[in-house]
């Protein structure tokens, strides 16, 4: 499988996905 970071837009999409994951992680940590 190709590394998504080799593509600029793959990198940006990974960034947005990571934001969503970390948002829900933060909510969980805050008891939400």
């Amino acid at each position, binding site marked *: 499988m190709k*590394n998504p*970071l*080799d593509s*600029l837009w793959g*990198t*940006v999409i*990974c*960034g*947005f996905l*990571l*934001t969503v994951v*970390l*948002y829900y*992680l*933060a*909510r969980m*940590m*805050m*008891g*939400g």
Partner: protein
Amino acid sequence: MTWDFIQYGLGRWLHILSGVMWIGMLYYFNFVQVDALKKAAADTPPTGAGITKHVAPRALLFFRWAAVATVLFGALILGDKLDDALLFKENAYKPIGIGAWLGLIMLFNVWVLIWPNQKKILGIVPATDEEKNKARRVAFLASRTNVMLSIPMLFFMVASKGVFRGAGLL
């Protein structure tokens, strides 16, 4: 001039100012220079020498020191709440703590992975062609990792407070 003004007034202003410089340079490298150099290398004769000789070293200078300044001014703003943020002790500081950790990982990437390898690529330190190729790949992936991390980092720095407050968590 009160300490509060230095910490929250000047500190926040300088944190954002240096952060714009840092992430601005990061985006310049990834959104502009990488692709431009690839195209310049395909020209006959190659036309990228001026970028690697005059532009990249100067951009890297402001890039790596702006990274240090951003983190130091960020620590100044947090002050005695730095441990609450980094150790996720209080709900109010958990979002900024996540942002701070992302920033620290990015600072590590700048100084430990990107800059030492860029020195080899740009010929600032001697390296064989094989070492340069390896350095190019490591620096590239570290730089792309920082672009990826900058997206949630900025969310947790500037956008998250209202979102979490809206969800009744703050």
